[in-house]
Structures are given as structure tokens and as C-alpha cells.
């Protein structure tokens, strides 16, 4: 058995629930979350890096998830992207009377275009700065700011609360590399 296989097995068996939950934030779809996680695992373990433990491997997999998510988006056909835009446009028009539904932050996220969703997750869940998001998703900083600004307005509408999308650089509370580390 290759040296990386036991770590891969451990990550998939023991760390998959949190990784899938994280991927689900981005995808809004459990099945697609599994596909994203699978690609992230392949990408991470194919690099040749020798992981000494599952914590480190999990952290790398977790960091790969948003990139994989965006890459998958970019590969989709134009028709699919158009469909996603339609969904997003529909999301903007969710009436206030359905607030009970969209109070679910997952539903609110799902109503965002995927790129905006990824920026929101990295900004508000991972606490990354705009430059960090820009680097991770290979997007221009101006594009990230625009996505965050647009998404904030929509989320505020759907969630019924202000969403501060300040793009001021902040120090991350938890560094991405340590996010998966457990005591």
C-alpha cells in the first residue's frame, strides 16, 4: 500500500462529513458536494506531497475545495451557466413573505450565483481577505469586491439583516491552513 493511501482513507472516512458540509455551502447540492470533494481529494493527493497526518491533509483538501468548485464552474457549458444566472436572478426576487424559507442561510446561498457564493463563503466563513480570495479563486480583486458587494445586498434582502461586506483587509481569525486541524 502506498504511503499516501492510509491518510487518504482516514481523511475520507473521518474528515469527510465536515469537508462535505463545507463543499455543500458552496454547491448547495449534496451530490455535487461529493463530486467537488472527490476532485479536491484527487488534486491534493496527486501533488506528491507526503502528508504526515490527516490533519494536514484535511487542511489542504479543504483549501482545494473552493478552487475545484470554481474550476468546475468554468468548465461547464454556456447553457448551464445561463441556467445558473436564471436561478440567481430568481433568487433576487424572493418575496419577503417567503422569508421563513430563505432564512435558511443555505437557501440564501443557493440563490446566489456560484462565483458570488464562493466569495461569500471564503469571506464570511473562512474570514479571508479580498486579496486572499482573489488569489485562491484566481479572480481579480475588483471582481471579488463586486461579487461581495452584490451578494451582500442580496443576502441582506433574503436574510433580513445587514450584511457587512466591507472589503477592508482583516486578519483571518483562523488561517486556512489550520482550519482542519483538530485538537
Amino acid at each position, binding site marked *: 500500500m502506498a504511503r499516501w493511501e492510509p491518510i487518504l482513507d482516514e481523511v475520507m472516512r473521518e474528515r469527510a462529513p465536515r469537508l462535505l458540509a463545507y463543499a455543500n455551502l458552496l454547491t448547495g447540492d449534496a451530490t455535487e458536494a461529493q463530486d467537488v470533494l472527490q476532485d479536491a481529494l484527487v488534486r491534493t493527493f496527486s501533488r506528491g506531497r507526503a502528508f504526515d497526518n490527516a490533519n494536514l491533509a484535511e487542511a489542504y483538501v479543504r483549501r482545494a475545495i473552493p478552487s475545484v468548485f470554481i474550476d468546475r464552474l468554468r468548465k461547464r457549458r454556456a447553457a448551464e451557466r445561463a441556467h445558473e444566472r436564471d436561478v440567481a436572478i430568481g433568487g433576487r426576487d424572493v418575496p419577503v413573505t417567503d422569508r421563513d424559507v430563505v432564512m435558511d442561510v443555505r437557501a440564501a446561498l443557493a440563490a446566489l450565483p456560484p462565483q458570488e457564493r464562493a466569495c461569500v463563503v471564503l469571506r464570511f466563513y473562512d474570514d479571508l481577505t479580498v486579496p486572499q480570495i482573489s*488569489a485562491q479563486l484566481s479572480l481579480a480583486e475588483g471582481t471579488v469586491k463586486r461579487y461581495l458587494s452584490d451578494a451582500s445586498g442580496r443576502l441582506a434582502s433574503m436574510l433580513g439583516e445587514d450584511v457587512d461586506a466591507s472589503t477592508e483587509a482583516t486578519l483571518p481569525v483562523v488561517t486556512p491552513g489550520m482550519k482542519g486541524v483538530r485538537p
Partner: protein
Amino acid sequence: MSGLQERLGAAVEMDALDFDGSSFAEARFGAVRGRVARRRAARSAGIGGASLVGVGAVAFGAGQMPWSGLVLGANPAGSPSVECTTSMPDAAAGDVPDLAVAWTELGGNSLWTFSQEHGTGTLATAHFEGGFLVVTDFDGKQSTVEPGADGTYTIKLGGYEVTSTFADGQDTPVTVAEGNTAPVMTAELVAPSSDDGSSPVSWAIQESTSGVVLATARMEGANLVVVESAGGTQTLEPQGDGTYVVQLAGQEYRWAFTIDGQGIVTMQVDGESSGSEDIVTVGSATPSITSVQSSVPVPSVTCEPVTPVPSASASPSVEPSTSPDGSSEPSPATDVDSPFQCGFVFDADEHGIDDVRAFGAETTDTAIRAVFADWYGNQAPTTEVGDTGAIAYHATLDAGALTGAQVTAADPASVRHDVLPNAVGLSFVAVRDAMVVGVIPTETNHATGLVVDSDGEGGPLEAFLWNTDGLTACGTASVDGADIYAVAGTSDGSAVDYSWIKVSG
């Protein structure tokens, strides 16, 4: 913001309770493992395109090659050794053992590699020409395959029949379906590389069809030490019956070794998955098959003692040269003709032939970090490369023939050319008074502070050295304060062209 952050955190926590890691692993582990193994195989064969090559992909030279144990094992020049060749009997498709394989796309030139699972190397390459699939097998034999009525291409390789389906009219395989995909592998022991008793005898465990070395094995006391080419070392104690059971390339395969007092090794391929019992006995001088009981074809092994003949290209060596007075201080060695070796004397600060020419200069670790961030994104080894502005070194080799070559950080004369004919190597050496006094060893899977890689298809091979601790002094020489040279070589399988350039100062 805090409200949204809390909601997102709660959503993750809640979802995490609903997801079942075991189910996910059971459903997807095989697929992930297979894809990882294929990518690692493609990279370790030195043929990965940009999308396949990552940090460490070719960074650590031949030590990471599947056949490193054979190439870099104890085989002192001039000592007798045994060379084995393997042939696979033809058989009806139904009798052919299954083979776990996969195509890997190399890049934009419509070239794919056809590799076994479990990181054992490349079996063939293929590309489209005018609607036909042109396949070149590992012996260099080329065949043109017409599509069948259903649009599939059926390929026979080494006794295995494989059917691959490519998208009609497209240059990339959209769907790939291989026949005979159950993971069965046969392997054999290659005879000891040295039998004079002066050094530990080691055997190469070689995959039968491709000839790729899966691991090397040697005795240490009563234990059998198996060094896997894919990484990892197993130290095995004898079983109750005196055999050693080894698991390689996943859990499906088990090998049992029996070693008697005469140095005779018996390798039994346990038929855990195939039901076969293939007994191959390898003697210390002339291996032969003593017993074969199998329901599937097994390779025949022909072995002949051979004595290495010095070639025009230098053999790889990182051993210190010994001077005539017995000291281990390196001295110019007349038999050293590779700049990758201790004792090599440079007659100029820069040398290159035609399009084989290395370029290089000092840089900083900070600059290397920036390059890695650009190349590898969030996979960049930022924890390994400092950000201090310290002096580091960068070299490029625009050999113009990287595609399909074995790319290593080792002397290209050291790699085998029976899988892919051409090889390219790029590394650094420490030089004092125009003589090599320090080299970067490539026996191990990791060379400190060195990455050799290419920025995508068609890009030059580039080497980065940000930590000179990876330079091992030749003998008692010191590498402190030594000049740093980039050394490069290209091989077409018959000769090696070297180039170098002083990059320090």
C-alpha cells in the same frame, strides 16, 4: 457580518452531522485512489503535463522514479550482475489476466499515456491522426488502430486487450472504458545486482508487463526490508513458515519470499485475487523458473549474467571520489565525464551544445515563493520556502524536447530508456576550483530545497534551489562558500549531452 458568519458556521456543523464519511469513503475511495495513482504514475514517469505536475512532481529526480531502486541500487560498475528479460505469452482474450489501466491526458497535443493503476508506470502513448488512433507501446512499436463500428478503439498491449472509447470526432477521450479492469498484477524478482558479498544484496520487484520496478527488497538480519518505489519502507519479519508477506500496490497483492542459506530466493505471488500460484525461483546468479502453476499466463523469465560495459555516458554516482593517497578529498577523476558527479572538472563557467543549454542566475527565496504561488496556487510549498530575501538559485533548460521525456533532477544517463527513450535532467552542484565538490543525492524521495518542474506544456524545464543544505559534500570537502553551478543533460537513449552554467556570484 457576525450574524452571517454564525449562520454559516451553524450550517456547516448541522450538515456535518448529516453526512456519513464511511459511506462516502466506501463509494468513492476506489475512484479517488485510482485517479491519484494514475496521476502519480504519469508524473513519476516524468511525462506529466502542466495539469499533472505539481510540487515535487519531478523535483526529486530519479529517486522518485518507479525504477529508482534498480537504477540507483547497489550495482557497482564492473561487478557482475544478472539481466532478466521478460516475455508474455500470447493468449486468448479470455485467458488474459486483467489489468488495471487508465489513460491520462498529457496536454494540448492530443497525447495520452496509458498507465497501469497503482503508480507502476506508462505502458504506451497514443494520439489521433486523421481519425486513427496511433499507439506507441513501451517497446517503441507503433500501430495504427481504426475505430470499430461502435466508435471504439481496441488495443492490444503486452498480451492484454483493452478497449477504449473516445468521443467521436474529438481529439480528447470523453469516455474511457477499459476491458479487463480487475486489478491483477504479476511481478517478478530481478536478480541481485551484486553477489560478491561486499554489500547487501537487493532485488528489484519488477512488474512483469511494463518492466517497471515496484520496489526493492533486501535482507537486514532476519528481516526483509522492502522499499516501495511509490514511497514507504516495509520491514518484515519472517512468518511462521519462514516466508515474508509483502503487500504492494494496494491490498490486492501479496508476495511471499523464501530465502534459504544459499541465497536462493523464492517469490510466490499469492493468488489472492487471481487464484493463481506463480512460483518463480531466482538464484543468485542465474534465475530460472522452477515451478509454475497458474490458470493465467505468466511471464517467462530469461536471465543471463552480464558485465556492465562502460558507456560513453557516465554512470550516475554521488559517491565521493577517492584520491590516490587514500584520503577522501575529491580529486579530479579522469573517468568522470558527467557534471552531475563528484570530481568532474569544468573547463569553462558555461557550456552548451546547440539547443541544449542551461541558463541560470542567483535569485531569492522570496522570488521563488512567488513563482511557486503562480504555478501551484494554494498547493505552493510556502512552508518550505522562506520569504527572507535570502540568496537562492534558478536555472532553466530549454531543451526543446521535454514532451514525452523522463524529467528528473538526476543525471539522465542514470535513467532507464526502455520505457521512454529520452530523458532530461537538471540540478545544481557545488563547485570549488572548477571541480564538483558537492552534489544533490537523488536516491531518496526528497531532496532538500530543490524543485525541478516545468510551467506547463512547452515550457522550459526549470530548477529552483533555495536551500543549499541539500548539497552533499563529496568526501571531506566542504560545500560552504563553494560556487553553485546548474548542470543539465539530455539523453536520447544512446548518448547524453551535458550543459552547465555558473549561477552563483
